[in-house]
């Protein structure tokens, strides 16, 4: 490795083609090989396996292993699965919206406070992610249950009615709250990241030119953070579509979603083939929605936020 000449750092270690330096090349290609293996084993192989299975006839049908669209046909034509898919979309859309509405103010707060307060607040934002999803979800059971924290507080405050005497679990609201709570840190981080790039002098300039605070927000801050909002939504929406434990615990059979069907088919009914088709259908649905969303948003952003 030649020493840096004239103060120019030698960057060949970091992926640039190194001039036939054996050690650097071996390091580079070795690393790439490891990454490739990890990618194949942990990401591509299970996906391919699932897709192959989904094109096989159900194991219990006793038919020969000829490839068939039967699993997809029954998923698409069965009105039950259409209802479930719609419900799943509703869970994902509602919780993504809630995460945006609640996450933006938090991200904004993180942006405007001083560095010490910020690192403390960041700890609170990140800390739920250090706890298992199951534990976080059961936290909501403790709060929303019939004898839970919410009802205890209401009763202690003298509010004794049908509402404070019944459970708040096993409905869409509980599921949306729970799912939002699980994924909101990702939304906050995405928005914070784009807020960080907004120069505060732009907000001062807008105020100086006569914009009251709300117009500063809608004219400058919001358009400039659209990329962060898009990034946040495209991150949390698929996660919300695929979320399982939170929905199962807080919604139960009342809020049955696609992932629960896949789980049931795979583990209870041992119909891996149909479960694979459900998984693939979920993947396709998410890809189409996120793709469309990105397509539309990139046009809006190109209008509003030049690169």
């Amino acid at each position, binding site marked *: 490795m030649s020493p840096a000449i004239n103060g120019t750092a030698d960057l060949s270690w970091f992926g640039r083609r190194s001039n036939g330096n054996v050690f650097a090349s071996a390091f580079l290609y070795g690393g790439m090989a490891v990454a490739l293996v990890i990618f194949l084993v942990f990401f591509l192989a299970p996906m391919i396996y699932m897709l192959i299975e989904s094109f096989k006839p159900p194991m219990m049908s006793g038919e020969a292993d000829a490839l068939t669209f039967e699993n997809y046909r029954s998923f698409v034509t069965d009105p039950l699965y259409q209802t479930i898919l719609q419900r799943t979309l509703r869970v994902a859309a509602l919780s993504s919206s809630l995460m945006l509405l609640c996450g933006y103010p938090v991200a904004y707060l993180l942006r405007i406070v001083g560095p010490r307060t910020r690192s403390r607040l960041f700890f609170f934002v990140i800390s739920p992610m250090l706890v298992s999803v199951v534990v976080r979800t059961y936290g909501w059971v403790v709060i929303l249950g019939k004898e839970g924290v919410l009802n205890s507080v209401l009763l202690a405050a003298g509010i004794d009615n049908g509402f404070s005497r019944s459970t708040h679990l096993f409905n869409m609201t509980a599921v949306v709250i729970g799912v939002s709570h699980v994924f909101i840190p990702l939304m906050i981080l995405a928005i914070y990241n784009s807020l960080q790039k907004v120069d505060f002098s732009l907000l*001062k300039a807008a105020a*100086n*030119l*006569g*914009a*009251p605070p709300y117009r500063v927000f809608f*004219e400058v801050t919001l*358009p*400039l953070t659209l990329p962060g909002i898009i990034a946040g939504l495209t991150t949390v929406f698929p996660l919300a579509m695929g979320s399982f434990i939170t929905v199962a615990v807080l919604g139960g059979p009342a809020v049955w979603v696609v992932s629960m069907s896949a789980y049931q088919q795979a583990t209870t009914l041992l119909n891996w083939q149909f479960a694979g088709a459900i998984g693939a259908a979920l993947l396709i649905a998410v890809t189409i929605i996120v793709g469309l969303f990105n397509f539309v948003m990139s046009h809006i952003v190109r209008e509003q*936020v030049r690169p």
Partner: protein
Amino acid sequence: MSTLQLRDVSKKFGANTAVANVSVEVKSECLALLGPSGCGKTTTINMIAGFIKPDSGEILVNDNDITSVPPHRRNTGMVFQDYALFPHKTVFDNVAFGLRMRGVPKAEREKRVREALDLIGLSQLGHRFPEQISGGQRQRVALARALVIRPSILLLDEPLSNLDARLRESLRDEIRRVLTTTQITSVFVTHDQAEAFAVADRVALMNHGHIVQVGTAKELYQRPIDRFVAKFFGDCNFFQGRGGPLSDGVVFVDTNGGPVRVPAGEGPNSSSASELTIAVRPEQMFVAASESQGADVNCLSATVSSIRHLGSITRYEAALRDSSVVKIDQQQPSDGVVVGQSVFVCWAAEHGMLLNAAAVK
């Protein structure tokens, strides 16, 4: 035209006093706030714009107290150091922003934006986005954006410091031209004295949160009130001594290097029989082999300690009899003067500047 008044404005950040009892009046002119970094000039302009609330004191525009008016209702136009153009809006929309916020109807808005872009010579670039134009063009757009709203006060916060030297000079002249044309009351913050003198009608020199002296370029250069001001505008030699009798507007001062004469000036400076400080600029002095005779030249005996030729000037350093060192810049070197030689350092009495005795420490 508008009048801006600051009355005893002060601001502390924690234990640090950023601005202390600043009082100044600006009326249909450009006042430069000049000073080293951390002197409080940026805090002052931010208080005028309303971004920082003063701890005490009042800010008045046309005799209306605006101290507690929020920034968006102050009708000030500010040009920022880093341009602060909205990256997601075109040049045209950037300039139109303030008019839109004021509810100016579309037709008039477009007319005024076009006029503003014409004023800065960028009418062709209205459809471009800020990142598609050069730094100098961006700052001109920022200037147009601040002017198009017809602000009562125009605030310029180091508008030239992000530009390279050549652009800085041309934009400086452009700002001067626009300010002269519009006759707008403006405050220009800078740490560069050449900029301050080129753009502003008057300059307020600030240090440690105080305005040390306000005046035209000539006043500050020729009649500095203390050592800080004298040194800020170039090298200076200082002589201290007791003031003697005053006659014909001239004070005799018995300095440590010998007796000298200095114009008495006006006001408290002329107080005689007290400890006085005289400042003389190196370029006003000369080295002579023999003492000049005459009432209008001061000569002190000294020993040459170094001679350096610096291109257009020759710099001498000479030690006075109390071994304090005097710097002399001469355009023509004195023939035959060598290091170690006993000489006289001389200056015309009128070039001596009597500083405020109170500032002598």
